[in-house]
């Protein structure tokens, strides 16, 4: 607990400076005001009637969709790229070219292609998560000690056995690293992605942008804290899942 003490002190200092009137609350609301704003988000909603839990559910849904898509495509492709050098040679120049483009730079073209709505939002989130998942999976396969493949061969393993009994479990630690990084990036692109995908009028990104439109910095900051906490929780859950399915580390 002791390591959270500096954070606690900072919050106290922040509250103190606000109470003493150093910052006007339309610039930097105090922690207490932010907590009140959080309550308002829960009960009244932003815009009014659009309650917080709905925003959270919509955001989770979009991130879940984009992230799942990234895993469903990224993991198998990564395994193939790691195992077959031809595959690697085929895809790596394309990936090298596309990967440096930030996911957010895709927003305009995503809107042109997919329109404003969930499809563009999911596409942006997918782009953010896809490359970390893909590249970590591929490097996981490449890092498997070739001697393990030889050992499997001397035990009569076919290509299929090698794939499922050596490559997949052997690259699992890297796949998880990729998934955690991918999830982090996905969650980070969420707010921007929701600039494009808010036809429904829900989403944490949409919520804080609306709060900005009507000059509510307390609700913006409360929204930011919620995004951060959910991101932290998801990462914690992924780590828990990771250690439960690979106990050998």
């Amino acid at each position, binding site marked *: 607990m002791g390591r959270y003490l500096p954070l606690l002190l900072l919050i106290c200092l922040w509250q103190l400076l606000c109470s003493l009137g150093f910052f006007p609350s339309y610039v930097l609301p105090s922690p207490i005001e932010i907590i009140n704003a959080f309550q308002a988000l829960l009960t009244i909603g932003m815009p009014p009637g659009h309650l917080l839990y709905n925003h959270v559910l919509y955001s989770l849904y979009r991130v879940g969709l984009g992230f799942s898509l990234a895993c469903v495509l990224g993991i198998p492709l990564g395994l193939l790229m790691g195992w077959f050098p031809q595959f690697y040679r085929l895809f790596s120049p394309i990936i090298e070219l596309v990967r440096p483009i930030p996911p957010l730079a895709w927003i305009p073209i995503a809107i042109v292609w997919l329109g404003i709505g969930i499809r563009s939002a999911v596409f942006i989130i997918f782009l953010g998560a896809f490359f970390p998942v893909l590249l970590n999976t591929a490097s996981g396969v490449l890092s498997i000690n070739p001697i393990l493949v*030889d050992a499997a061969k001397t035990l009569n393993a076919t290509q299929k056995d090698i794939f499922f009994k050596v490559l997949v479990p052997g690259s699992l630690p890297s796949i998880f690293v990729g998934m955690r990084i991918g999830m982090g990036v996905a969650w980070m692109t969420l707010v921007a992605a929701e600039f494009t995908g808010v036809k429904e009028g829900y989403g944490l990104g949409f919520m804080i942008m609306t709060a900005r439109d009507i000059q509510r910095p307390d609700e913006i900051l409360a929204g930011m804290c919620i995004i951060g906490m959910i991101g932290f929780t998801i990462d914690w859950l992924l780590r828990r899942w990771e250690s439960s399915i690979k106990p050998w580390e």
Partner: protein
Amino acid sequence: MHLELVGIKKTFIDEKQGKETSAIAHIDLQIEDGQFISIVGPRGCGKTTLLRIISGLEKSFDGEVFLDGQKILKPNHEVALVFQQYALFPWRTMCQNIEMGLEIMGIGKLERRSMAEEYIRSFGMNGFEDQYPCQLSGGMQQRVAIARSLIMNPKVVLMDEPFGSLDSQTRNDMQEFLMDLWLKRNLTIIFVTHNVDEAVFLSDRIVVLSKRPARVLRAFEFNSPRPRDRTSKVANDIRREIIGILRQERTALVCGQ
């Protein structure tokens, strides 16, 4: 069981530099059922390559390897290979590692578990069944690797410096363990080592290879009964002679001849 190596020759080709390095110049070898053969030679003389050729892992080489008259074309369970670095699957428990080959053969869960447990018991590893390799000592890991090969009932067991990374006490224990196993189970073993003491303690026949490119310099038959006294006069004589040959090879290597 009869294993025959005919005119084995291996050249590594470095495609980038277009350079060819000869690793094995010429090796003929015959191994009879139940023999324990050690192959000794200077470091980097192609001993590991030779085992990889016999096991079928190495595809491009000249010459032929016959097991009971059948040419070995690809790795299979009849020729087991035990690696120096154990090569256990880190994500599998001891029991699951030993079961791997049976699992690949499609043997049912309960049956292979009970087969593996039999090995675990007879190898004195009870209580560690569900431990992962990283939780086991080096000696124990190597016993798991040996069990994993033997459970497949191989006709010949190839061992590539299996005790090379163990401390000397564990190494002695493992040599005795292996000797015991060989006597009880009538195994045929080809054992690569650069430790002459080990070769003399274990083998019926010791094949001394030259420096790279490898060829057979001498072969010693050594039929004294087991368990052997590591310091008997015969053992010492053979050891002295082999060490002498190897020293000459090393000097030649240094002089670049």
